[in-house]
């Protein structure tokens, strides 16, 4: 199952975070920081999967934005990878050619959209 979904820019600012496990705010911040550190320096030629603690982070980079999903170690990685892309396509459709600024200024719309995932 999906533990959490994060949408971060290259500086590590979180643009969207959805948690499916109950966490305290401080833990969330720590996770966001760690996930960002984990994915930001990876070469584009590397795999889209990184082991993270006892789970796996499936991430994908779109320009300066990282979409990361933390899933169980036995889950089907490619399926989640493609669902990230599906989400991005939906956002793209919604904002017609999406970019980070859209997500910043219309963060509330993003929240709404992600609710429909």
């Amino acid at each position: 199952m999906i533990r959490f979904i994060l949408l971060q820019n290259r500086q590590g600012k979180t643009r969207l975070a959805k948690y499916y496990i109950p966490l305290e705010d401080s833990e969330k911040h720590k996770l966001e920081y760690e996930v960002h550190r984990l994915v930001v320096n990876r070469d584009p030629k590397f795999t889209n999967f990184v082991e993270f603690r006892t789970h796996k982070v499936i991430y994908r980079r779109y320009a300066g934005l990282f979409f990361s999903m933390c899933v169980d170690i036995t889950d089907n990685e490619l399926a989640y990878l493609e669902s990230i892309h599906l989400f991005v396509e939906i956002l793209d459709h919604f904002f017609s050619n999406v970019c980070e600024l859209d997500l910043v200024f219309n963060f509330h719309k993003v929240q709404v959209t992600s609710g429909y995932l």
Partner: protein
Amino acid sequence: MALSGMRGLSTFISDVRNCQNKEAERSRVDKELANIRTKFKNEKGLALHEKKKYVWKMLYIYMLGYDVDFGHMETVSLISAPKYPEKQVGYIVTSCLLNENHDFLRLVINTVRNDIIGNNETFQCLALTMVGNIGGRDFSESLAPDVQKLLLSNSCRPVVRKKAALCLLRLYRKNPDVVNVDGWSERMVHLLDEKDIGVLTAVMSLLVSLVANTPDAYWNCVPKCVRILERLTRGQEIPQEYTYYGIPSPWLQVKTMRVLQYFPTIEDPNIRKSLFEILQRILMGTDVVKNVNKNNASHAVLFEALALVMHLDAEKEMLSQCVALLGKFIAVREPNIRYLGLENMTRMLLVVDVQDTIKKHQAQIITSLKDPDISIRRRSLDLLYGMCDVSNAREIVEELLQYLTTADFGIREELALKAAILSESFAPDLKWYVDVILQLIEKAGDFVSDDIWYRVVQFVTNNEDLQAYAAATVLAYLDKPAVHETMVKVAGYLLGEYSHLLARQPGCTPKDIFYVIYDKFPIVTIGTKAILLSAFAKILLHSQPQDPELRERVIDVFKRYECSVDADVQQRCVEYLMLCEKGPDMVDIMAEMPKFPERQSALLKRAENTEGDAAEASATKLRLQQQNSMALVVAEPQTNGAAHPPILKPSVAPVQTEQLALPEPPSSAHQRALSNGNAHPEVPVTAAAAVAAPSLLEEPITAPASMPATAPAPTPAPSAVDLLGDLLAPLAIEAAPGTMPSDNNAILDFGLDPSGLAPGPAPAQVSGPADPLTLALYDGPDTKVQPIGNIEDWYKALMIKDSGILYEDPYVQIGVKADWRGIQGRLVLFIGNKHTGSLSNVKVVVLPPSHLRFQSPPVPDTIPPRAQVQCPFDIFCLQASRETAVLEFAYNNGNIPVGVNLKLPVLMNKFLQAVPVTANDFVGRWRALTGPPTKLQEVVRNVRPIPLAEMAALFNSLHIGVAPGLDPNVNNIVCASTFYSESAQATLCLIRVETDPSDRTQLRLTVGSPDPTTTYELKEYIKEQLIDVRTLTPVPPVVPAPTPAISGLTGPAAVLAGLI
């Protein structure tokens, strides 16, 4: 979406984005927060749509990473708004801001339920989404039936049913009881007939979870799943919107195949046949295409199909087809596919017998070990580890060793451990094994844990033909200029034991060997020194006749370290000196170590541990350690002599003594200091050792098993525990729980006596077994119930809060809610049984300190499954004191007794109430208190340096009301609070804290009140708080301390209830 009138929001966002630096951003955010706070305060005049705007802003601020600790009530109240825009905001922000354990959520359950059972589809969706996102226990208990109805209803639109299925899944994960197994398998079969792919996907997700828990119940879903798969792979009746890059809903395909993997095997030949046809088609029909997304999606399906083939014992032909495919994948450039190829190949090794086919790809896998991407390296390391057997061990381990020198730090430890395990399990000959481990230590000494070298020592000890070889090899390593400390340890131990076997070779006289080792002696740590000292003693005593020069040098070393500050080293030196003086008669004592019993490799165990959940593993380890150190302290006297009736079965004793003779790590000294009673560790040890050594020698010399007692290592330290674990676990069990605790103190006293020490009271750790918690340890390795979380942290939080968790373990949770008014208070314990069995022998006893009076309620003896019991205590404060009340809590889970002592958060500050004072009033009263004993002053040092505002917040949270602006000096804080107690009634306490801006670690604290006891206790209490300032969420400094209400509905809840 109604977004008009949200200009304020975009302006705010632009403002924040335009901020030059973090400070500017912070001040802009603070300004906005203050604005929102005032708006919310004047609640009456705020229209719903304005509220909506502020709640959006709050969410934005929260997303920027700031704490938003107010306004939750306003957010929640928006849910009950009649119109969509407000309701939507309420739902979305609630699901982001609050997590499932938040109290406010209970208050909206009714509203949410009305939305779910209402007629408005959009509202239904909103409510289902929120419940699905949060999914707490309360929701799952009260809403599950309604959600089920929606899912099963025929009148709802697919979009609602889809959400209902996902929502139910979330609730099911939280609380499996919501889906009753009996009826559900029929219903699921019915649901799988669904035509709408969206609903079907959601239902399939639900099914995956259901089947994972109870596969037997859902057998009848199998044919349906196969049919769905067939429909998908043939691409029949798939609407355009569910086709993803030309592939019919890849996610549904993946999920369906996942479901099938939970059934052991498929019996029905027809279904089996058609399933294999489908799988065959997927395996053969997937090609690599240019489009990344299409490629990913089709491979997602393919890998799931592979997993399914592995799971069903397919025909050999199909399996080798799979291996061939995987072999192709691990050679491709595309990193994701290669990664998955490696991963699945590893899985394949576990399931079926295809080793030989996989071995063909060994070279390719080794190439991947050098990939720049750590994810791929990890996978290939795993695969190599999995595919290793006797035939290719040499090759693979050598490859690993070679890679070790260039590998990065992230992977080295794992690499070293795996190499060690492989070489141990598949060593073609033992010499090779010793070579490998020594190389390992040489190349990556920092990453070689103690377990690894202990294991070498065991092997060498147990194999006589290896001993001379090992000694010669380590000697060669020691000759190198830079040697890792671990190498020095192994070498010291092995040469001490076996160097005499080399005596005939040139350059290997005892003296030469001594010098080689001694060369390293000055630069190693204390722990290693201890091992080397033993080696010196052995070298000397093994050499007959003794070389006078060698003897002189060795005795010289012992004399020099006889006064070492380290008790362990000191004791060794003293004892060895005695031994040397006794001369050749003593040579038996220094004979070679007896063989170790065969046992499971500690390394393998460790590997198992690390592969499991990290947190859990460390918990097990911790448990093991506690247990061992306990068992050993109690059992120790056994080695010292036979005068006392044996507590341990004789068969156990020799095992244990061998155990004790292992080279010991440094921290044992610390433990020994403990077992020497509470006397000062340094002085007595010398005395003890001087007396102990001869006394040890006189008696047990006839009994061979007691020999190792002279190797003065009676207490292995925790780091040796992994290795010792397998031995000690049986010890702890075999010692009957009944006799242990009662004899305990006597045994300990005995243990101390021979050392010539006054048998002072045993130190805390040693007397531990007397309390019920530790007693549970002796029942077996797994019975100890550990709290989930830190009791101390909970307690600290409760010092300033009035409700929260006091204690939680896997079976029980204790919550606290308290109200305080004047001299009395009411504290309710909520004891919840989280477990599916009932808890018996429940004991809840409060040991009140003298200054408090407790009226305790009757507590039921048994708590039924999943029930909660409330215990309200009425508390009266008699006088000021800093003592804490202790709650003795015990229960039986089945036959396992669990008991803890918990501090209750009933502290002085609970009986304090902030009072507003004017400057004149304060000064007047301050002057009236002239000096001790009613006014006390103290300079407090070592204060944790915190800003003034934070300190004021701390005072406020402790109900010590800060009166801002009374003191002209901005670096001072003055406070006034009333303390309520029966002896002094209401006592006005005045506090003044003068801080030094240049040195925040010290301050002057003055406390005054008409009652001397209160003054003193309050001063001490504040001092404790300042020296140990906890990290707490800053409370706004100006807010007056909350006045507690005692009636049923308290503070925020009542306000909120009014709102809705």
